[in-house]
């Protein structure tokens, strides 16, 4: 079958605005949007630029706005998109576009770094592994699934209008350690997220939860951090 893929192209070396370009490719219904992009790049227009690495929904490189929703191109099947109509593909919003579907992820990673996404402990290092009960592990299980694809953060209307907002992903990254019984940096992380641009900026629109290709309940995680801040107890 023939599918029409409309892609928002932008070339920084050519002065001008980004513009839509439509490509017609023959695809199987079980193909993914990433396959369509590959076909276009390899067979029609080698200048089409996008990121992808593992191509199996784990590396988080190919988050893009497909038919107006943030998804991973490698996890979105053509048959799930109504291929009778044009399929639109745009870069994720809120981050500076470098070329075509490639955006500058640095502001996103900056926010992630600033919540200290690593284990913080005091005292002597134990000689054995740090033991944790299944119940304690379950508390942050959901937020360990994050692959840093930025689909949630760039679906957030607060992030679109205020690039200083930490964004859902950074809060998910903090949640993973705040609710980890082995970690001792909770106070610091909560203080960071108590910032003017922290969790209180969240307007609970649930865009992030809807966008997450890993099915993380992002909004719930943000609310849990708010609760921990109000009651000063995790």
């Amino acid at each position, binding site marked *: 079958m023939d599918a029409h893929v409309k892609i928002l192209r932008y070339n920084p070396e050519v002065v001008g605005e980004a513009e839509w370009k439509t490509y017609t490719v023959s695809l199987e219904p079980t193909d993914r949007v990433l396959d369509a992009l590959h076909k276009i790049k390899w067979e029609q227009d080698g200048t089409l630029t996008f990121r992808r690495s593992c191509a199996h929904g784990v590396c988080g490189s190919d988050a893009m706005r497909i038919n107006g929703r943030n998804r991973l191109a490698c996890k979105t099947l053509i048959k799930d998109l109504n291929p009778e109509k044009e399929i639109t593909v745009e870069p994720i919003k809120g981050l500076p576009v470098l070329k075509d579907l490639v955006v500058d992820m640095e502001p996103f990673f900056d926010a992630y770094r600033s919540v*200290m996404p690593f284990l*913080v402990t005091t005292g002597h290092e134990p000689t054995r592994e740090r033991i944790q009960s299944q119940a304690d592990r379950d508390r942050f299980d959901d937020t360990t699934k994050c692959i840093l694809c930025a689909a949630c953060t760039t679906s957030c*209307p607060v992030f679109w209008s205020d*690039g200083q907002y930490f964004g859902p992903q950074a809060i998910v990254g903090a949640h993973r350690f705040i609710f980890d019984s082995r970690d001792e*940096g909770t106070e*610091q992380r909560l203080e960071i997220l108590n910032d003017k641009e922290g969790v209180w900026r969240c307007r609970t629109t649930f865009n992030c939860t809807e966008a997450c290709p890993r099915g993380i309940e992002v909004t719930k995680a943000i609310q849990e951090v708010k609760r921990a801040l109000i009651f000063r107890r995790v």
Partner: protein
Amino acid sequence: MPSPPHHPGRMSEIAAPRSSSRSRNLKGGGRNRSGQTNFELYSWLFMRLSGLALVVLVLGHLFVNLMLGGGITALDFAFVAGKWANPLWQVWDLLMLWLAMLHGTNGLRTIINDYAEKDQTRFWLKALLITASIVVVVLGTLVIFTFDPCLDPSSTLSVCK
């Protein structure tokens, strides 16, 4: 070069590895971490609590004014004068005024933060908002406490005779 030795028990010295603020600057300067307060926490909490209180206050207000007694047809100057002669309704209306104004002001503050792109615009919009709120709250409070139904000497109200 070997990495610096680990100091156990000095957690406060662990700084988050931050990259240069080059890309952050694309969107208006790095984050200002100075003056860390609980202001946003309290303002968030206030919205929830005042919202709950306002549901009771506003619905009670509407019920008493529009349904009880003669209903909407009995609503006139004398009705308001009678209500404000009672301290309960003075406090009720005062609470409603203050909570509604603070709730609305805080909500608009959030919207301005969301939508105003330039710092200048944001500053002036907030200045206007705060001025307007203060005027309304002060004037309203003044009226509730200094209200005198007999200010007009030719008043025919029963309380003024």
